C-alpha cells in the first residue's frame, strides 16, 4: 500500500481565536495530502476528474485531535492506504510536527467512495486502485473499507 508525506506550514489563517489550528483546517490538509498521494501514484486528480467525470467524495471521517498546532509550525501529514475495496478506499493519516516527529498531534481516517458526477455511485476504477495500492492491487482488496478509529480508543 502506498505511503505519502505532505508537508505544510501553519498559516495565520489556519488558526482560531484560541491561537491553535482550527479543527476544520485539518480536513483541508488531509485532502491535499490525499491528492498528493494519488499524484505520487501516477494519478493527477484534476485531469482525471475532467476526463472521466468521476469524483472521489468523502463519505466517512474519523479524526482525533491530540495535541494543538500553532501558527508557523511545520506539520507533516503522513498518509497510508488503510484499506482498499471496490467500493471505497480508506486513507489513514498521522500528523506530527516536523520539530517533534515522535509526537502525534492528530490521527484521522477518511473514507472515499467513487461517483460519476452526473450519474451517481460507481465502483472505484482500476487506475485509482493502482495509484493507491500498486499494480498488484487485486490481491489486496477487502470487501469494505470502513473507518475504525473510535473516540474512545487510544
Amino acid at each position, binding site marked *: 500500500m502506498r505511503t505519502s508525506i505532505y508537508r505544510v506550514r501553519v498559516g495565520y489563517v489556519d488558526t482560531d481565536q484560541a491561537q491553535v489550528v482550527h479543527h476544520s483546517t485539518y480536513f483541508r490538509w488531509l485532502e491535499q495530502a490525499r491528492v498528493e498521494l494519488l499524484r505520487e501514484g501516477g494519478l493527477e486528480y484534476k485531469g482525471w476528474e475532467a476526463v472521466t467525470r468521476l469524483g472521489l467524495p468523502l463519505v466517512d471521517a474519523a479524526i482525533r485531535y491530540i495535541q494543538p498546532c500553532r501558527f508557523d509550525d511545520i506539520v507533516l501529514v503522513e498518509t497510508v492506504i488503510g484499506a482498499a475495496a471496490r467500493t471505497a478506499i480508506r486513507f489513514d493519516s498521522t500528523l506530527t510536527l516536523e520539530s517533534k516527529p515522535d509526537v502525534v498531534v492528530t490521527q484521522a481516517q477518511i473514507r472515499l*467512495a467513487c461517483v*460519476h458526477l452526473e450519474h*451517481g*455511485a460507481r465502483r472505484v476504477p482500476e487506475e485509482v486502485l493502482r495509484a493507491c495500492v500498486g499494480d498488484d492491487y487485486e490481491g489486496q482488496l477487502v470487501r469494505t473499507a470502513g473507518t475504525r478509529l473510535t473516540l474512545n480508543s487510544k
Partner: protein
Amino acid sequence: MTRIELIGLFERTATEIAERDIKGLSELTEISTLGIDSLGILELVGEMEKQLGVQLPDDQLVGLTTIRDLIDLVEKRRQMQVS
C-alpha cells in the same frame, strides 16, 4: 438459477451487507426501500457478480429501481456471456 433463486440470493446478500435480516422480497420490491445506501448497493452487486460469475457494468446499474430490473440485467448479461 431460476428467478426465484436469484431473489433468494439477493436476500441473503442484502442481509449480509445491511447486517440485518432482509427477507420476503419480490421482483416488484424497490431497491431503495431496503435501507441500503448506494455504496451498499454496489457492494451487493459485487457480491452477486462473484457468486453468479457475471459482470454487471456500473453504467448499466443506473436506473435500476426494482429487484426485477436487477434480475433482468443479470439474465441479459448471462446470455451475452454464453453467446
